[in-house]
């Protein structure tokens, strides 16, 4: 029954695919966009973890989310790019901002007063990331295949097809999180 309804829509995917391939198939625009988005993402991520004002941290993370959404669009995942902005930037980070404002989170100076073990842990993490980057550069010869068009229709078909069980489980998880969050903040009168 479901597949009958889905197949009957009149708008074929083929014209959509060719447009996508033509626009993402190459060009100096894509490279420029990638490098700008990447640079802005890294810079605002650095602001997000190192600035002392928590509101600035959250807003920098919003900018990072935008840049990641641009990357999704470059990889052909258009539905995910829109969902990223809708879910992460428009809902999760708004929740963060609310909590920061309601708790009046204090400004801290993390860069100036890290604890001793943290310096070790921080250095090790940076080294591990650097090593990982070097390994990737040396061993992985990315051939840059064409983007996989991730339109809403195709992701929808995967969700009600192979990943149906996970889809239903996630809805139960969200319900549990909803109830849990409400129970946790309930005031006991």
């Amino acid at each position: 029954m479901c597949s009958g309804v889905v197949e009957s829509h009149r708008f074929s995917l083929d014209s959509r695919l060719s447009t996508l391939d033509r626009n993402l198939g190459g060009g100096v625009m894509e490279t420029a966009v990638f490098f700008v988005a990447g640079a802005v993402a890294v810079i605002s991520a650095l602001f997000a973890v190192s600035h002392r004002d928590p509101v600035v941290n959250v807003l920098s993370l919003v900018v990072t989310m935008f840049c990641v959404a641009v990357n999704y669009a470059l990889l052909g995942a258009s539905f995910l790019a829109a969902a990223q902005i809708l879910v992460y930037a428009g809902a999760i980070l708004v929740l963060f901002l609310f909590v920061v404002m309601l708790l009046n989170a204090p400004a801290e100076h993390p860069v100036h007063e890290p604890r001793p073990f943290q310096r070790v842990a921080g250095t090790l993490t940076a080294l591990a990331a650097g090593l990982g980057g070097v390994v990737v550069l040396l061993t992985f010869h990315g051939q840059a295949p064409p983007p996989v068009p991730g339109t809403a229709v195709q992701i929808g078909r995967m969700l009600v097809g192979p990943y149906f069980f996970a889809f239903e489980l996630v809805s139960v998880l969200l319900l549990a999180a909803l109830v849990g969050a409400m129970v946790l903040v309930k005031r006991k009168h």
Partner: protein
Amino acid sequence: MVIPTTYHLILAALLFAIGAAGVLLRRSGISILLGIELMLNAVNLTLVAFGRQHGQLDGQVFVFFVMAVAAAEVAVGLALLVAIFRKQQSIDVDRLNVMRW
């Protein structure tokens, strides 16, 4: 030129490292959760990049589920923080060192 997968992976690795540094070095509960969100985003980017590399849509479906789980986790994490704040008037995780109060 289509962006090679390597470039996306390096960007994701950088974001992951910055997020991990944020989680390890910050004292406020909210900042730690922000670092976790950054790490989740880096992993999502890796998943989508590899999905394209293999020509499958599974990477993107995975990311869809990761987004949903991250939303649930943030909701519960922030609710926990609010409850903790009500008890001890501070969200400094260094002061969370008693098992019961």
